[in-house]
């Protein structure tokens, strides 16, 4: 199979060399997009699995594979990075097939945020080109329609820990549930291709509920994202002590969520509209990113689950860094700059994983162009996850960290992710559900 793909790649690469960058994607592009490591592997030098990058050797072996934020942290001795083996993450064939079937049907509109003709799968599998002024935007669309939780997913329990990055003191721990559900462009889980009826023309919905601690218990968040990206998301918040569902003002989406270092806009890396940002593609980087096989990591016993599931642990400066292995993977660097001049973020440097289109690493700069926060999200193959997730062909999120470098504070997340759980249905994503579940 790999040989077959390489042959196709060789043939088509020669064609590409002649024609230069082309807007039209090819089947080769699809293969390259979903199986990049069948076509090219990183030259990592001494950076081999098992090697630990420390402040003492980072300049020698790691600097070229770290972004400026992570490099500085290693250099300062805040964290050592253990290198893991590259684990290609195979995605569900139905999604890939949808990409093939609908190849070149998606086109950008005149405005950022306008997408025409998209049906399903990855809308722009063509390798991005620095010559394409809208390449960053296309990558953002690929992220939006990626298989982040398949067509529906849940994280429960979902532990968020607030930490003082100077002292490591744990200030607060939230226990939550997170659900996401795609109403359109579904490829894996019935109903396919979309939920009907869907009078509001919703693309995706997110639901969160806080179970602990007591002061925010029963807080619930509901977000409706519409198919029309130019349309503002709608968000509702249920506050346990008020027992009411309140419409959320847009400003609250770009504000700290429950005191964490994340804004609602930071969920999953970026949880906003495409049209809210200006997307600039900056090129390919081979980067150390937090991808790993969950079951081979150093797992903790802090939280007990009935099924024996164990979570990743955290260490390093302030306990803000995951005790995992990092692997060198192909990343696309995109700079996302908010359109709204009053947005608290100056810009984000986003490293998208070229295979899964997860926002693996993000450096967030303030409006003074000073590094403000650093984000990572851990992702791994389904075979290393819960038994129910295995074979789903969906990359599995496993943990996150958001470090506020200026405030020396971080929020870390530990996941138990379920792909396509039966309980996550459209009925869960209504304001009424918030009222029914909230006490």
């Amino acid at each position, binding site marked *: 199979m790999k040989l077959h793909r390489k042959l196709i790649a060789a043939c088509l690469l020669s064609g590409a060399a002649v024609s230069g960058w082309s807007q039209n994607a090819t089947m080769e592009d699809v293969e390259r997009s979903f199986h990049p490591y069948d076509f090219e592997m990183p030259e990592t030098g001494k950076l081999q699995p098992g090697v630990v990058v420390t402040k003492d050797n980072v300049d020698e072996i790691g600097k070229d594979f770290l972004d400026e934020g992570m490099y500085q942290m290693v250099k300062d001795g805040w964290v050592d990075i253990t290198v893991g083996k590259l684990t290609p993450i195979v995605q569900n064939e139905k999604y890939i097939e949808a990409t093939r079937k609908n190849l070149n049907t998606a086109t950008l509109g005149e405005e950022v945020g306008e997408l025409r003709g998209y049906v399903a799968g990855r809308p722009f599998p063509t390798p991005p080109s620095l010559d394409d002024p809208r390449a960053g935007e296309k990558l953002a669309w690929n992220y939006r329609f990626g298989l982040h939780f398949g067509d529906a997913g849940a994280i429960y329990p979902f532990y968020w820990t607030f930490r003082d990055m100077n002292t490591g003191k744990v200030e607060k721990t939230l226990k939550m549930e997170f659900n996401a559900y795609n109403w359109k462009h579904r490829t894996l889980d019935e109903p396919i291709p979309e939920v009907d009826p869907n009078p509001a023309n*919703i693309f995706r919905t997110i639901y969160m509920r806080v179970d602990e*601690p007591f002061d925010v218990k029963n807080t619930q968040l509901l977000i409706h994202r519409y198919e029309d990206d130019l349309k503002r998301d709608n968000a509702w918040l249920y506050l346990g002590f008020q027992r009411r569902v309140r*419409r959320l003002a847009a*400003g609250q989406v770009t504000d700290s969520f429950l005191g964490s270092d994340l804004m609602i806009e930071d969920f999953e890396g970026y949880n906003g509209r495409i049209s809210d940002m200006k997307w600039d593609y900056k090129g390919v980087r081979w980067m150390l990113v937090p991808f790993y096989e969950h079951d081979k990591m150093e797992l903790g016993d802090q939280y007990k689950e009935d099924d024996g599931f164990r979570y990743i642990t955290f260490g390093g400066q302030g306990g803000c860094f995951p005790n995992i292995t990092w692997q060198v993977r192909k990343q696309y660097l995109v700079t996302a700059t908010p359109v709204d001049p009053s947005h608290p973020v100056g810009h984000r440097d986003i490293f998208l994983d070229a295979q899964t289109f997860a926002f693996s690493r993000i450096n967030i700069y303030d409006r003074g162009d000073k590094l403000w926060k650093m984000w990572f999200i851990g992702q791994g193959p389904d075979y290393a996850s819960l038994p129910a997730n295995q074979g789903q062909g969906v990359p599995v999120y496993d943990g996150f960290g958001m470090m506020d470098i200026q405030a020396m504070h971080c929020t870390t997340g530990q996941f138990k992710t379920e792909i396509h759980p039966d309980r996550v249905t459209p*009925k869960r994503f*209504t304001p*009424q559900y918030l009222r*029914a579940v909230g*006490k």
Partner: protein
Amino acid sequence: MAYSRYNSKRGAATAALSGGALLALALCAGAPQVLASDMDVAGFVENATYYRESRGISKSRNTAQVEFGKDISGAFKTSRMTFNATLRATYDAVYELNDGEWGENAGGPITLANGTFGGRVPHGGGLKFAVGGVPTGLPPTLGFPPSTDFTPFFGGPASPNAMFGLPNVVSMSNPNEGLEMLGGHLSSENGGIAFGVPVRPCDIDRRGCKPLEDYMDLDESEMAWSDFNDRWDFIREFYLSGSFDLANDDQVGFKVGKQQIIWGRTDLFRVLDVINPVDYSRNNIYDELEDIRIPMWMAELEYRWGATEFFGDINLSFVWNFDKFRPSNLGQAGQPYQILDAGSFFRGMANCWENGCTVSNFPVPAPGGGLAGLGAVDFGPGVIGIRDVKLPEWNLSNTQFGIKLEGVKNEIGFSLNFLETRQQLPVLRGHIPSIDPFNPFVIDDYDYALAFDIEFPRVTLIGGSLDLYWDAIKSAFRIELAHTDGEEFADTSVPDLYSESDVVRWVVGWDRSTFIPFLNKDRAFLISAQAFGQHLLDHNEHIGAVLPGLPPPGKVGMADHENNYLFTLLIQGWYMNDRLNPQIIMAHDYESGHTTIAPAIEWLLDNHWQFTLRANYKIDDGVSTWDDDRASIPYPGLSAALTGGATTGLAPTASNGGLRGANPLGRFADGPLGMAQEEDEIQITVRYRF
């Protein structure tokens, strides 16, 4: 004996304290072991100590609250089902720590203004009604001992001291001690009426308690241990909640048990959120509604279509409140928190009915006709006051129900609401049998007489709500509107002294997150403003008639404003990852002019400890006055006395509004903010969450 001391109070309090502590301990420590291991258990213990300027400690409330939740989805073929319970034990030590203000030693002797006759007289020292009707300085002459019960002979006022209106106000049953003057915390009488209010708990001083039985007749231990009563309020919530998935993908939801059901979308103002009554005795209007709604045994059944071809979400729910009716708890005379000072007014009036009372600045006819002046007058039992509280008995027809259609259309959330309920605030209905002080052998239901029963009429509410987001100004709006039919209000222009009015209430709320960089460059502030309007559609207000011997007429009718508006503003900020949360709340009553400012700062030390420091400061704007019915002529004898005419055959006459004061109806014009204007406080709360 109506007035007694409960000598074993301290022992009872100790026993109650021990019992409550044991319960709290059991709730906190034992429950997790006793209940199933997968039961979700959380809660807190808390001390809230408030200090009121001029009166000292006004609250030292200790609370233990435990919440239980258990997921039993799948049971009875449900797709989701949970059991939820909340138990709360509250002990307020203020009645021990500051018993000179709020407990067994509260109150004292009082004096009352003697109007145009000059000076002040002690309670019981007012002018007496002589036989023949005209008040004089003579003592009562009828030779029955005060404890003689004439009720079997004459019916009417159920008072053991009924003296046909011939007063013996100061007796062993109604001494001048343990009293406060009604409204005295706000001002002196200023030419208006006032009377003594017994302010000691009902186990210490029974005066004014019996007529308010089961409504405002709490003993000290019941005030201190407010959750432990015969309605088992320590069970804050106890219900099953769940849903069934139907074959057509719709859902049927249910919620049955003791619970709070919340309608509407706004804070503080209860336009649609009126299913549960509210306990204002906890901290007036300032505690979170979650903590002061009085849970009721109710069932809610809901059909959820979810998204349809037309609606983004749509559901229909039916609520049945099958619990025995409970009015809102307004607080009792002698408690630190009383909304509108109503508890004092009611108990003082109940004491007037039961034992008689001295009323300041009352019109005194001249012996030859006309008005001699205003003076402190002693009324005997059964003449004026509150006779009874008519709480509806439980029967099927007395239960309450509501229907709500709620959904989302074009990104606008909406609801349509219908509720058949009862007025949770009391209405004083006049026209009950009482004694004519000018002819004490006649008991009749006189027009305009200041003799009342408290009732809670049926009310029908129809309303709706909206929420929407306006992107251009990055703001969310919340709107509620309700029309009620059946509400009753005090009205000095009609013979029953109350009348019905349809009411429209509305609230518009505005929320916006806004960065204020010089205060916090990293975290936005929430700015939330609300405007509340209330319109009495059948408002009754006019200038009274010229009456012989009385001052020129003034306004009479309903003291409640025909149109009134309140405004609130909340600015809330967050620092240190939301562990340090300052906020300021301001509320302004447009018609009365009163303003409250409540700054607060909350500090969450960790997952467990929480400190809150608040202030509650009022900018007062004086005291409102209204016609107090002194200028009415309920009794033929009074008419005769004023006109020098015959004692019979004259029609009763409504008040002409020429005499007015802060008591009793000015309190409705002043509203909750104005009536608490002397309650500036510093409030400290320490909470341990688990």
